[in-house]
């Protein structure tokens, strides 16, 4: 098991390098000028200065300098060459705090020049992880519950009911469910806050909205798995032994029926935790999802690559976690 984990972790930098190259190539090819904002076009002098500042004049120039900064090579070099120390002593002489040095420096945001991509991600990732985490918890509870009910009594009213709810959950886009929930619970009833972040109350609506499609999918997976498992021999044996139905379903069947759900949970958690543009917008949640969309719309190269690298890392890590869990649930897997 340790070997698997170590091997996967060693693969990570290689995967990131390939993703970085692909992302930059694509982002670079997108038409549009990343230095332009809105109606106004920068004067030629301003554009030239900004291109020089951000190394936007040549693809390879940008490619290498970004890699140097993001991989930590620059950090080591500045530390060894004394440049970092010189900067710090200069700032000290002027009586102000020196610029922060980061090992993996993902560069500045082109759209929000005062911010480094590291800071933007450090601020928004915990928010998305929280909402995504809460959404997954809700999704698992609702999804597995509904799936088990549906499987135990297939084609019953309860089954059709959960089927219907699942269908709605998957098909209704979250800007509809979100807006309706916001309208009911915040505007009409006034129970839950709007445009706030940092309290448990503020977490309820966005995470519930985000959980719905996942819950629906989990319900379908659980139901399918359960129906299959409930027909298998060892369940019949268990029943023949006189094990209570409750124990058969929840102890014997669910554990095996959960395997497809488990393999779905890896990418699903990564997806939920890297934010949803729509849910974040509707509830004014300061998460990471908005950066995905805005960075591309604005052709904010540093932000695009930063977000993609973080997402890729999370995806690899969650898949690894799922593999580990898999072995734990089903020891037959090598």
């Amino acid at each position: 098991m340790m070997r698997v984990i170590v091997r996967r972790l060693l693969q990570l930098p290689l995967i990131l390098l390939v993703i970085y190259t692909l992302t930059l190539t694509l982002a670079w090819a997108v038409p549009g000028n990343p230095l332009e904002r809105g109606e106004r076009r920068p004067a030629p002098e301003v554009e030239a200065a900004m291109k020089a500042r951000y190394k936007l004049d040549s693809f390879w120039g940008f490619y290498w300098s970004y890699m140097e900064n993001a991989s930590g090579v620059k950090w080591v070099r500045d530390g060894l060459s004394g440049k970092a120390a010189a900067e710090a002593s200069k700032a000290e002489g002027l009586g102000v705090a020196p610029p922060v040095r980061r090992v993996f420096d993902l560069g500045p945001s082109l759209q929000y020049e005062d911010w480094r991509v590291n800071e933007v991600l450090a601020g928004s990732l915990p928010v998305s992880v929280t909402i995504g985490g809460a959404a997954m918890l809700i999704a698992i509870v609702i999804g597995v519950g509904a799936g088990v009910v549906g499987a135990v009594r297939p084609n019953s009213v309860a089954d059709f009911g959960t089927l219907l709810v699942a269908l709605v959950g998957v098909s209704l886009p979250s800007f509809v469910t979100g807006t309706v929930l916001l309208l009911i619970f915040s505007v009409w009833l006034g129970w839950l806050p709007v445009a706030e972040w940092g309290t448990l109350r503020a977490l309820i609506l966005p995470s519930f909205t985000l959980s719905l499609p996942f819950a629906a999918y989990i319900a379908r997976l659980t139901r399918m798995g359960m129906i299959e498992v409930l027909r298998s021999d060892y369940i019949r044996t268990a029943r023949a032994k006189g094990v209570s139905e409750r124990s058969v379903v929840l102890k014997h069947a669910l554990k095996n029926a959960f395997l497809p759900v488990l393999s779905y949970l890896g990418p699903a958690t990564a997806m939920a935790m890297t934010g949803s543009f729509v849910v974040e917008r509707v509830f004014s949640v300061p998460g990471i999802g908005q950066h995905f969309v805005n960075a591309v719309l604005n052709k904010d190269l540093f932000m695009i690559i930063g977000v993609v690298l973080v997402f890729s890392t999370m995806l690899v890590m969650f898949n690894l976690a799922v593999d580990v869990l898999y072995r734990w649930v089903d020891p037959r897997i090598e």
Partner: protein
Amino acid sequence: MPLAVLLAIVLGVLAVDKPRKRADVVVLNGGDASTLDVTRVSWQQDNRIVSSLWEGLVRNDVFDPAFGKIPGMAERWEVAADGKTWTFHIRADSAWSNGAPVTAGDFVFSWQRGLLPDTPSDYQGQLQLIKGARAFTDWRTAKLEAFAKDGGGKARPQEAAALWEETQRRFAELVQMKAVDDRTLVMELERPVPYWLDLCAFEPFYPIYRPLVDAYQSLNPVTGRVDARSDWTRPPLLITNGPFKLVDWKFKREMRMEKSEHYWNRDKVGTDSLAIAVVDDRNAAVVAYQTGAVDFNTDLLADYRAEMVQQYRACLAEHADAVAAMVKDGVDPITITRRLPPDKRLHVHPLPAFGTYFYNFNCLPKLPDGRDNPFFDPRVRRAFSMAVDRSNIADNVRRCGEVPSGVLVPRGSIDGYTSPAGVPHDPEGARKLLAEAGYPGGKGFITVEILFNRDMGHDIIAEAVKKDWEGQLGVSVVLKQKEIKIVREDLKKHDFIVSRGSWFGDYGDPLTFLEISRSGDGNNDRAYNSPAFDALLDAAGAEADPARRLDILRRAEELLLEDSPLVPVYQYVEIYMFDPQKLTGVSPHPRHKQQLFMLDVIGDGKGPEVFREMKRTQEARP
């Protein structure tokens, strides 16, 4: 077990990331600031924040219809008889938020930074009105090019430092801007600039704290350029000289300001704390206001805002007599809503803005595909302009209180400027003109393509324009909708036939709207090239008498409308949302320069606690 980990993460983050106590005033300012690096700012939203945290030599009196100037860091100023030499006297009680005095040298440093080709301001062209400034920028640009070429990619720290020292000497020699002593700033301009004080009140002309900026700049040994970072603008690092200091800034969440104890005019600051919140979704922004989370939304963009404006108008209509009496008396629109009985519908404030929505024609002789361009002929352009029914677009398509306009410079927004008559809506005349140009009944005319970007309702305006042109002129029109970035590229390459456009003025002079049609200007998407128009702008530049100068500019606008490289459609409206009985300090002036430190919640016991009203015209001009 993994579920427990998830739960722990969720609760852990919540425990750490607690929201702050609500500020005295919470403002939605149309998204987060894109930068607070004063040299770099150019957006209205950013300017509003800069003018709350910093202060320039002077400020605009935003409650004066003439937009007069009041002292800022300069307690007084003089201009020589030739209109070119200005002397500013910095007040003795000026201070940065760390207590250090603001000096004349701080202004020299800040403006030099904007002039350097390494760290240019978007308004470098305006800074170059100072004598010798353009020569300085050009000199350093040439030197940097030579440096990069000579070095061939090698690091040369000594040479870079030497060039930097020479640059400082050159600046002192060339640029006629001097700190005579710590409290006296003298500058000589290339020519008399009647709006110079307005520029001094403009945020990119504000000072920055030198040691802080220096620590975040370094010389690049390969290119010889100053490499600048902008992340010194964040608390607790940031040092400013204005009414507020920045205490917290969470990206795209909240910016928190508190009254600065070092600001000279601190008694006039309306609140102890102010928060700029961010709500990206435009409908959620209205909900946030309704639930009381926000006091002032500076940009109401909700999908149903037209309905809200109609309700506002219906409410005014219910008190028609009282409103008419106040309008006659010269009372400003915000004060009118305050004096009427409280009504939720009056929390919406549609006010004409300092911006114009228009359509561009490609004025080049050939179209991008090589065909002859019929819009090269001014008669054709004028005909198309006359065929547009502006009132229909403003009243039936937009419905948000936009003012239909046949002129480019928004009427009544600049003191002393009389707008020309404007392009009339005259389909009959338009048809005659088009026939004269060789296209009777639109016969033989190319298929007109209208290029515009998605969102913001540009599509339905384009539909209305298409209907006018097809119905009145007999030409065929197709609509081309693209992503904003791609539209911008097409415009830059003049790869379009007709496109939608807009412009918001920067300073209180017609030039801010006219300049963008000068031949060779970076924002001349139309590729309009008229020596007569350029000559009028030059003549205005050389004219010392302000009234005669404005008259020349009026003639320039007249010529522009006659030549019609663009079709003005309407004057923008800016829709604010706040309770006029509770909040004061919002300026109804069409320049929409909001001084956030003037915002005052009436009844909270903080600030001067008086309702601010626009001065009546007769009071303002004694």
